[in-house]
């Protein structure tokens, strides 16, 4: 660490920037930073960006704790004979969440010319062969759901970008009340006339959709959503 006031170059200024905004530099080093900044527009800009980032991070919002949660959590923790049921993260969902559960899924497509057509329970989306195309699976949950299981089974020659060669993909995730979007970037590498099976499961409730994927030789992929099967 360099002691005493000295003339910094831009590299030294950048090297010390983190410590400077964190207030970790000596008085002499801080003065050297200020002296350099005063005569260097690029470093002024860099400092401004760093300070803006730090300020935005400091004020990142967080939800307030649910009223009564602290008392409830302590009460449960001090009753060792009680079964404590964790609702999320690994396995097991609250049984109250399962009763009367109604889940459904709709599919919309992120297409530049908005070609998605919805006809009753059938949706058709025209996509291009060999090109990545993202469809959004929109899961509408009637209430917050913890630990819902989303599964995909892909037909041959269709893959989800980022999951090369995987025909079956499963996620455990939480769903917020209302709409939850699962962006699904797909790519078909050959002609396909088969189904992509998507299902969502929470507790004892499961809903499965069969999505017909047709890939034409004319460089277009057609997605057809058939009515859901309740399992």
């Amino acid at each position, binding site marked *: 660490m360099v002691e005493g006031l000295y003339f910094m170059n831009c590299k030294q200024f950048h090297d010390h920037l983190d410590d400077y905004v964190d207030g970790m530099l000596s008085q002499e080093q801080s003065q050297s930073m200020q002296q350099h900044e005063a005569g260097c527009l690029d470093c002024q800009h860099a400092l401004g960006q760093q300070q803006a980032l730090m300020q935005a991070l400091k004020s990142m*919002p967080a939800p307030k704790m649910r009223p009564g949660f*602290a008392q409830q*959590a*302590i009460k449960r*923790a001090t009753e060792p004979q009680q079964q404590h049921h964790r609702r999320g*993260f690994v396995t097991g969902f609250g049984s109250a969440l399962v009763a009367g559960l109604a889940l459904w899924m709709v599919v919309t497509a992120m297409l530049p010319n908005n070609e998605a057509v919805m006809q009753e329970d059938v949706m058709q989306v025209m996509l291009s062969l060999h090109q990545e195309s993202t469809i959004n699976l929109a899961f509408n949950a009637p209430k917050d759901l*913890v630990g819902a299981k989303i599964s995909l089974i892909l037909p041959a020659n269709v893959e989800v970008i980022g999951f090369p060669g995987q025909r079956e993909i499963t996620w455990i995730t939480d769903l917020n009340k209302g709409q*939850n979007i699962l962006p699904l970037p797909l790519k078909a590498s050959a002609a396909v006339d088969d189904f992509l099976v998507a299902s969502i499961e929470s507790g004892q409730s499961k809903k499965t959709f069969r999505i017909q994927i047709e890939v034409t030789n004319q460089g277009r992929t057609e997605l057809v959503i058939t009515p859901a099967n309740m399992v």
Partner: protein
Amino acid sequence: MLAPHVEHLYHLAYRFSRSQHDAEDLVQELLVKLYSRHNELSKVKSLKPWLTRSLYNLYIDLYRRKERSPIDHGYDETISASACTDAGPQQEVQRSEMQHAIAKQMDTLNENQRILLIMHDIESYTLAEIAVILDTPIGTLKSRLHRSRAKLKKSLDDGTFSLNSAC
């Protein structure tokens, strides 16, 4: 003994897990574990960092068994309550948009980087405190912090966002 710390633990658990449900579960699980060790707790000199470390360990233990959710929850506008007191409406919108962008980009950091940014830059733990909590040398933390901020800035710059639009 633990009651005064529950709210802070909840906020930290929310930052870690990004989910109010998981935050409640984490805190509940932690309290259950700790109340059975109340004799040990009473001997702890500085409870806050000790609790933070316990929460972090519990989170990591559970996180490793859970795939990161693919769901894009977007940005919860209902929790965007923090504000710059001297900011005007336009600045407020810019700040909110910027925080939205930051929240998304923080998910692109690796878990060690994200946790460090949460603890240091958001929750204002000192590096010395974090060194104890994470059992990691300060020098390593400083390097990691530098890389985390640089990555965050770069990803924000690569997007359409201007860091200068913050309050």
